[in-house]
């Protein structure tokens, strides 16, 4: 069974008085435990599509099913609960919470989103920090670590709730090539170890090659699929 199914998926929004068709009738399917990349130039609709898959926005028309749930019908609260349970996020700017340590940042979704018991929490956080190579930095605050380290912490935070899907919007955009590869490789490793589906958007051609499936978006339409 597919993890994600999109059928005739469209998104239109108003920019001032202008109607912008961000996505135009997309059809695609993504299987579980895939490592998928959406590529395309700026304004091609990558972020809009990730927002729809991540239940941060609703499609204007069409069907979008994530883990057998029609996510277009979820209200704000249900969407938040769905994200907390099924989806992990990695952001371009890392978006770690500055007042929390590395350990606490990774543990945040377990504490405030999933209410996981503390013994299990500790075990999961330490295992993930170890997996992304950040165990020794666990007591540092975000402003005490480098950009690459921050993104590794963000990967651990995205995975700590054992989501079925991790969405990463331009996760390497603020990193140098070496660090970007390292982060992508960590994501690949985690996908292999945990069976989590990773979907990331990028316009960096060198990074794109690391994906197993590459969807190309152009002007809101799917222009190609490479395996």
């Amino acid at each position: 069974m597919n993890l994600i199914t999109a059928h005739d998926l469209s998104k239109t929004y108003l920019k001032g008085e202008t109607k912008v068709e961000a996505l135009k009738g997309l059809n695609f399917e993504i299987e579980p435990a895939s490592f998928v990349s959406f590529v395309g130039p700026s304004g091609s609709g990558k972020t809009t599509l990730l927002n729809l898959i991540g239940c941060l926005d609703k499609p204007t028309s069409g069907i979008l099913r994530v883990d057998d749930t029609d996510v277009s019908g979820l209200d704000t609260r249900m969407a938040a609960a769905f994200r907390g349970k099924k989806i992990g996020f990695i952001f371009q700017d890392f978006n770690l919470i500055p007042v929390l340590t590395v350990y606490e940042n990774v543990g945040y979704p377990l504490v405030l989103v999933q209410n996981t018991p503390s013994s299990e929490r500790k075990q999961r956080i330490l295992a993930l920090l170890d997996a992304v190579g950040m165990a020794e930095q666990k007591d540092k605050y975000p402003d005490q670590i480098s950009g690459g380290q921050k993104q590794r912490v963000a990967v651990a935070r995205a995975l700590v709730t054992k989501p079925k899907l991790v969405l990463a919007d331009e996760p390497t955009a603020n990193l140098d090539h070496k660090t970007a590869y390292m982060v992508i490789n960590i994501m690949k490793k985690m996908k292999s170890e945990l069976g989590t589906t990773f979907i990331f958007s990028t316009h960096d051609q060198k990074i794109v090659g690391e994906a197993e499936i590459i969807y190309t978006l152009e002007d809101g339409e799917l222009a190609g699929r490479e395996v």
Partner: protein
Amino acid sequence: MFDLFKIAIRNLLRYRRRTLLTVSLVSIGVVSVLVFVSASGSFKNMMIGQITDSFLGHIQIHKKGYVASIDSLPLTLNLGSNTLEKVEKAINEIPDIEAYSKRIKFGGMFSNFVETTNVRLNGVYPEDEARTVPLLLSRVREGERTIRTGEILVPELLAKGMKVKVGDTVVVIATNRDGSVNGKQFQVGGILESATGPGGRDGYIHIDDAAEILRMDTTQISEIAIRLKDFDKLHEVFDRLKDKLSNEVNKQGGPAFEVHMWEKLSPFYNIARMIDIMTFFVKLMLIAIVLISIMNVMVMAVYERIREIGTIAAIGTLPGKILAMFLIEGFSLGFFGAVVGNVLGVATISILSMAKLTFNFGRQKGLLLSPGINIQDILLISIMVITISVLASLQPAYKASKMNPIDALRHV
């Protein structure tokens, strides 16, 4: 919940100077209110104590219509022996009454054989009077602190004006209820310091002397002053007394007696009311300080952390938890402000109390201000500050919880 508190405290410590300023502002407000409440409360309680314990008593009972014509001290509205018996029976049935004193009040002429002037006098049973208004005899500046038959306690202004001193012989002349005039010689037993309020400049004689001057064959009492064991039970005892006496009717079918609490008999009650109103407005100012300062800080906190709110919303934090997170920040600001304010306030009050500040009120000099604060006031002010802090955080917290994650994440 503990984790929410931990995050809230960390967020407050993120902007240390701003948090410190806000907590300081709230604390200063709390200190000001506590000091004002304690000082004004001390002043009010002391003045009430002075008035009720010096001459008024806590409650007074008269024949119906007496208080309305109290300026003329009408002897025609005295309580006769039959009615007096009923009143005393009602009083004795209430265990919360500590003492009562029967008084004959009348106006007369006071002469030192050279000059003559008006005087208002109270004829009292000395022991009952001393138990009912225990500060009365402490007002005796010169002479012995007692009221003997044949002696008169002269108010100090009268003594000064008439140039009489302890041991002098004076004459009191009065008209009895039938209109005939009678006089009696007295020896000045003491000079009585004036007290604030009506009755504070009256003279005192023994009740037997009063009955003799007024040629009373049977007991006739103008008023009964009552002292309670516990002043806090004033309204309760008043209601019970009124209830017990309500069955007694006069010849016209109306109530035979009137019962008054001290506050209906003394103009100081209006000052006490004004103190209460001022205290209310000072509390209102504290509410305004807390409301504006906390709301300002929380609006800033939300504005500065829009991307962070977007992040935590995106990773699945429910709107209710985001709301709670900001409410707890506001709560913490109020809580710490209240705690620091209470500690500093109690310390300030203790220092003021130790400083033994004195003040004058009316003709009473050197009254000692002894400010104190009770736990109820501290709790009330703390709860008020914390509640207002949470309410002030409500709008910014609600705004944060309703933020669209996409817009919030895009915020620069």
